[in-house]
């Protein structure tokens, strides 16, 4: 049995779904019974060794876990140039090597196995970059479940390769035309579907947001990232890392990496939000840096909004980060100061996208390119014996047409 310290950062959520003042269950009455049902089903599954064994089997043989922890030697050396003898040693947690190309599949596997236990035959999901949609469509194909994916019309355009993938996997992709036509609106539309088809349908949320129990449940499914990282770095270096860096849309790849390290107080933790055209421009998706606490999509958290409480449209080059909110546990970790939240602009992310491609032969997704952009800044300030782990949450294949377009073919 693991005993958690009294002042643990890992004790949330409480039984009402709160992380400090954040989280909760702010949903329409029609959905409350099914949300309580999901909570109960997850609590039972969590304590069932058979569920864990089933998960482990698919994680190993279908997803391809564990994902490697890779020492990025050329990136490390490049960032040491001109750093005056400094420059952290950089490791990449290779979530982009998972089946379907990102960390999203870890969570989807858990939720689809749960939906099966609940007897639900129809799965719905929202998606931004399309990675969560692809992972959901994939597991629905694997288990013979009906699958409907809601995706903002703007994102359908900029992440075309993933739209085709979802369709080939047998999913119906519904382009959402309401509001800003991005991830937030896709989530509204998924909730509207769920209210309508609640008896048959399971809503597979793609990040650590939404009503309780989703934020904690999705974190638990993603925590495999941090658990593996711990073992792998101990094997490689004989000690824990000095810092962790991950990008944040809703915050699932970040929570997955961070969670197992939250009580290791010597490990510095950095979450990177999308600064879009720059924080001062007002066109960004940095809810912790530029927003304030409010209530949306089932939880209280930091949100971008105006003085009347109307939700603002986020902006990011990356469809997966283009969301005006953030998971409630991040809001809590921000207020307690345990995690430092910073941001990277569209331009910085693009530069990091190219840098990793050229130096390591790994084309990252635009989302983790935001994390890499801050590694470029942070690593040269740290001593050479500083070990920094970055979550490479997804591969960039889906972004190739968009980046080629932006750079005009000049790479």
């Amino acid at each position: 049995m693991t005993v958690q310290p009294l002042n643990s950062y890992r004790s949330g959520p409480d039984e009402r779904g709160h992380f400090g003042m954040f989280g909760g269950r702010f949903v329409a009455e029609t959905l409350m019974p099914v949300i309580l049902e999901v909570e109960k089903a997850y609590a039972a599954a969590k304590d069932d060794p058979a569920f864990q064994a089933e998960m482990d089997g698919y994680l190993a043989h279908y997803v391809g876990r564990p994902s490697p922890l890779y020492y990025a030697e050329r990136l490390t050396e490049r960032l040491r140039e001109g750093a005056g003898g400094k420059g952290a040693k950089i490791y990449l947690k290779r979530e982009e090597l998972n089946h379907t190309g990102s960390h999203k599949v870890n969570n989807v596997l858990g939720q689809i196995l749960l939906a099966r236990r609940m007897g639900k035959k129809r799965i719905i999901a929202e998606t931004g970059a399309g990675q969560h949609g692809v992972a959901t469509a994939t597991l629905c194909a694997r288990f013979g479940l009906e699958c409907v994916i809601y995706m903002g019309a703007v994102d359908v355009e900029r992440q075309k390769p993933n739209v085709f993938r979802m369709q080939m996997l047998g999913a119906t992709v519904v382009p959402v035309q309401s509001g800003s036509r991005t991830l937030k609106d896709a989530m509204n539309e998924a909730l509207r579907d769920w209210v309508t088809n609640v008896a048959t349908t399971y809503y597979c949320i793609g990040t650590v947001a939404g009503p309780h129990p989703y934020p904690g449940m999705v974190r638990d499914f993603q925590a495999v990232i941090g658990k593996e990282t711990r073992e792998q770095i101990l094997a490689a270096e004989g000690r824990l890392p000095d810092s962790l860096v991950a990008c944040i849309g809703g915050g699932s790849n970040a929570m997955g990496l961070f969670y197992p390290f939250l009580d290791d107080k010597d490990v510095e933790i950095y979450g990177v939000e999308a600064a879009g055209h720059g924080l001062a421009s007002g066109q960004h998706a940095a809810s912790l840096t530029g927003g304030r606490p409010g209530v949306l999509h089932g939880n209280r958290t930091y949100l971008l909004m105006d003085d009347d409480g109307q939700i603002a449209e986020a902006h990011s080059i990356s469809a997966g980060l283009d969301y005006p909110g953030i998971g409630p546990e991040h809001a809590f970790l921000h207020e307690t100061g345990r995690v430092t939240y910073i941001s990277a602009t569209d331009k910085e992310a693009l530069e990091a996208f190219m840098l990793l491609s050229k130096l390591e032969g790994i084309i990252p997704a635009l989302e983790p390119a935001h994390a890499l952009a801050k590694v470029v800044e942070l690593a040269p300030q740290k001593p050479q014996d500083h070990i920094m782990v970055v979550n490479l949450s997804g591969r960039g294949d889906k972004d190739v047409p968009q980046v080629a377009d932006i750079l005009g073919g000049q790479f």
Partner: protein
Amino acid sequence: MSRIDRRFAACRAEGRAALVTFVTAGDPDADTSLAILKALPRAGADLIEIGMPFTDPMADGPAIQLSSQRALKGGQTLKKTLDMVRALRAGEADTPVILMGYYNPIYIYGVERFLKDAREAGVDGLIVVDLPPEEDDELCVPALKAGLSFIRLATPTTDDARLPAVLANTSGFVYYVSITGITGSATPDFGAVAQSVARIKAHTNLPVVVGFGVKTGEHAAAIARGADGVVVGSALVEAVRASLDGEGRATAGTLAAVEALVGELAAGVRSAAKATAA
């Protein structure tokens, strides 16, 4: 007795159900919206629900989504909505006014300040879609303390085990959502609705009103036979939309379109006078 209680008692005395009309504050513009609100009682509305527009109305269908967008585009804010209620109240002492919407704008306005301002403006009750009983501490309990009714939605998924929790802090009336779905979608199965209303009435003495999917006088009459009230929203904001000009502005026909539909619905409700009332 609150204004809401008095109004239901009066309708009961007439042997009929109440007509509850929903329109969005500020749709299509502030002046027209106030004119519509003032016209509703004259046209036959017994209670007025005023939608507080929100950018992300997760439980609403396209008709109410679009009406919220029109209102927000015209600069509607929660403060302006409260001002509108005050202006309505100046000439309308008896018709209950219920504000309906989502929690975030209220949370940002500040719960205590909102409750005080709403009460002073003449608001009688609140319906907040994304506040289930599990979140009663947020607004429901403070609202009841401030003397406002907190009206809860009961739905087809609210089973007998859960009903007591839903009814516990409800006051004024219970709003039964006739379908599992969003506003403005399918027309309900009237027989099933009557059964559900009877089921809820076995748990409470509060009036039970039914909404979602009621579009015509005929629908209203069908629901009114078993329920204490009928709510119509999407059909009214759709009538507003259909009356606008090519640029989305109100026309001479806007007010008349709303009045005509309310008249039809009121006649429907009255045609279903309860046999038991004589």
